[in-house]
């Protein structure tokens, strides 16, 4: 088994109102100097050794991310 992490983020040109709301809350809590926040999702998959990288890409683009508005990055990590 291997651990795979898929990060899904709104594309840079897409408005991210959730990230903006977080960014706007930070100064109210006394945290200054944060110019921008963007909010995304992280998926952790435990995958069998016979699952290849091409399959992982297809999983990410057909289900985990909507490529119309989101970018994704797939990486294998050490368990």
């Amino acid at each position, binding site marked *: 088994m291997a651990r795979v992490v898929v990060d899904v983020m709104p594309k840079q040109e897409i408005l991210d109102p959730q990230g903006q*709301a977080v960014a706007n809350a930070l100064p109210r809590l006394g945290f200054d100097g944060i110019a921008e926040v963007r909010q995304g999702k992280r998926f952790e998959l435990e995958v069998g050794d016979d699952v290849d990288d091409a399959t992982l890409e297809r999983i990410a683009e057909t*289900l985990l991310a909507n490529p119309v508005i989101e970018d994704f990055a797939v990486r294998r990590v050490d368990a």
Partner: protein
Amino acid sequence: MSAKIGIITFPGTLDDVDAARAVPRAGGEAVALWHADHDLKGVDAVVVPGGFSYGDYLRCGAIAKFAPVMTEVIDAAGKGMPVLGVCNGFQILCESGLLPGVLTRNAGLHYVCRDQWLKVENNSSAWTTRFDAGAELLIPIKHGEGNYMADAAVLDELEGEGRVLFRYAGDNPNGSQRDIAGITDARGRVAGMMPHPEHAIDPLTGPTDDGLGMFLSALDALVAA
């Protein structure tokens, strides 16, 4: 014999009952379809109603697009069957690839629930022939993720081909690009919209009966076919 319009229920669907009430009001027969069905029970058109299919897990509509019944709907839509997606149904049709673009979180982050004026842009699709182009309709909206987004090329194509069905009149409630409230596919058979025509079919239970025109239009299209 009246035309049959299927109403899909997913786990988490809310508006199937109102949709099933609207169809006979327009003169059609409503047929209940379940998400796990592998056939469409001989219906002539399909409504994908609003709600929170599969809890809106992952993204709105992202799980519903893999439901067995949606495989049948995608196949039938390819052959020209009229399909209407309302609210979560619109989100499902976008995730399924039957319509372009995607519905994202409202720009103001708030869930909006109010009666909304819409302007009719296209009155030639299977679902909008009963309206006059330029007419204004008052139909309820209730959603947290109705901000329509697509890239500029897709938006230009929609506009150029007259595929914007409705635009929000007055204030844009959700930040939707170009004030888009509803669109149709290239053939004018598959329609998606955030406002709820099934909630506006009589003055007793809705602000107007403006929504009934969607169902009457589809039944016209089916009779003519």
